[in-house]
């Protein structure tokens, strides 16, 4: 539904063009309602009192907006702040570990300077698609036997299972876009390969490093199954898993509090997401989409 195509329709098509435009706007309005309404509902409910939030006839706009639900999160019995910090630390570390290990591999895979480059690349790609559920029980047993169950280390290890292959493949896409000629000059100057990587490639793909890190962070933040399985004491729990585990307790009928907790859980992801939104698709499909 482009204005270009309407313009060619000539004066005979003016009416059709106008009604076409109206239809276009109506469709956009419907789409907008569909995406925004649930988010509005979360925020609106989080600002309602406990009573109003569960009223049988829901109010569209909070009658007397209050930040009480948010305040209670931080003053209640549950270590909500700990959940938040646990998630931030483990997700950040998982992102950093994944990116640091992945950079040299992505570079070697991008330049294909070894004979099994294709096979290795596709191996990483296959691994990226492995169902986490298959790894769950064996990883649990490993952590159990090494006494690493219920530690941040175990959680970071879990997040790395999807973070690392993801980071390798995504970073390869960013390095592919750096012309090889840039390296030739450095090679003539006597730089070794790791020096080229650290001093030339890494500074050039710095935005790509950040984007990749944020993607891993988002995936880790989203993950529920690893913290639910690998963390056994509540105060060490990640934010999403804590929401699930405590809902049966504190939040059982307190939807206002639940929605406030949800909004806090969403906020960091929202910020991270809009920071990297533009490279989103390119990162996810890693070079397989033309024109990105």
């Amino acid at each position: 539904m482009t204005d270009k195509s309407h313009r060619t329709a000539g004066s005979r098509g003016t009416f059709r063009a106008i009604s076409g435009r109206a239809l276009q706007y109506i469709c956009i309005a419907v789409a907008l309602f569909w995406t925004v309404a649930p988010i509005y509902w979360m925020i609106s409910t989080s600002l309602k009192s406990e009573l109003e939030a569960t009223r049988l006839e829901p109010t569209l706009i909070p009658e007397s907006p209050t930040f009480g639900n948010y305040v209670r999160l931080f003053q209640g019995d549950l270590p909500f702040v700990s959940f938040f910090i646990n998630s931030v630390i483990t997700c950040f570390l998982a992102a950093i570990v994944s990116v640091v290990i992945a950079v040299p591999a992505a570079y070697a895979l991008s330049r294909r300077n070894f004979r099994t480059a294709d096979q290795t690349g596709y191996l990483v790609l296959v691994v990226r698609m492995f169902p986490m559920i298959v790894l769950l029980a064996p990883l649990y047993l490993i952590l159990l036997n090494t006494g690493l169950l219920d530690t941040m280390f175990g959680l970071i290890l879990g997040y790395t299972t999807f973070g690392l292959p993801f980071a390798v493949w995504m970073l390869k896409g960013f390095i592919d876009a750096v012309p090889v000629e840039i390296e030739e000059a450095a090679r003539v100057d006597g730089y070794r390969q790791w020096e080229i990587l650290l001093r030339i490639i890494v500074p050039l793909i710095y935005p790509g490093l950040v984007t990749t890190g944020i993607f891993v962070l988002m995936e880790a933040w989203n993950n529920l199954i690893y913290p639910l399985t690998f963390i056994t004491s509540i105060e060490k729990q990640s934010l999403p898993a804590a929401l699930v585990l405590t809902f049966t307790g504190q939040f059982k009928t307190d939807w206002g509090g639940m929605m406030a907790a949800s909004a806090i859980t969403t906020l960091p992801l929202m910020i991270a997401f809009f920071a990297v939104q533009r490279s989103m698709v390119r990162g996810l499909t890693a070079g397989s989409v033309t024109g990105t």
Partner: protein
Amino acid sequence: MPAHSKQASSRRAGGKAPFLHWMVLPTLLVLLAIIGYPVVSTVYLSFFEYNLLDFTPPEYLGLDNFAQMASDRIFWISLKNTLYYTGGTVLVSMLIGTAVALLLENLKGPVWTAVRALVVSPWAVPFVVVAFLFRFMYMQNGGIVNDILLDLGVIGNPVSWLNRADISLGAIIVANIWATTPFFFLLVSSALSGIPDAVLESARVDRAGLWSTIFHIKLPFLRNPLVVGSLLMVISNFNDFAKVWVMTQGGPGYATTTLVVYVYRMAFERFEIGYASALGLIWLLLLLLVSVFYIRLLWNRQND
């Protein structure tokens, strides 16, 4: 991008390239430890009866676990649910995402930039939050979905969306579509912006109509990104645990039990690690099949 890979492969043709490069070793070693070993261990355990609560060593069963699976009604139900869940979500999200991307394609200016940002924002909502949010909206008494539908006269009585075996899976799929659509919107938007101006220009000169422009000129450009994108989403939805677990825990009965939920329950509620491993192995093989499609697609692209 093809230009670079060509350069790279011509350099590679030097002949003295090593078999493996030390730079990939850290990644390969880590993957070997945290993925290779668990997978081998899953294959091994799938031939055993091993319950963590029994405190007895695993007992060799041969192929019994797999035989049990064939006659396991819940396994087949969960397989069917997974296919519906994945297929329904990916198909509908793709259609909506593509349509909205086409609708917003040529609208420029700050207002439309803001609209685009709003349209993609569900992507940034954590899965657990999506699940809680929809669970709240689906509530039978005081839920906003029932409230609106009652006001509109679509339904006569409040519906218990997540507690009815016939509609609960559908209700979860709707929530999942909400969360997945932005991916396709972003994908298609960026593919649309990649269509060369000359192609659109010639369509204009030929006075191609709106629909023929979309179907004959734009869709061919969208085909590859959509195929790659849907495969990625198929894989990610195959593995989705959070939404189903938080909204229904697989119930009522087994109406919304997907394979992931079933394996999780088997391993961490009944602690039947052996049988769970066998289920996981079948799961792995199914996903590998999808991965092979995906990789062949990338492979063909690279060799074009």
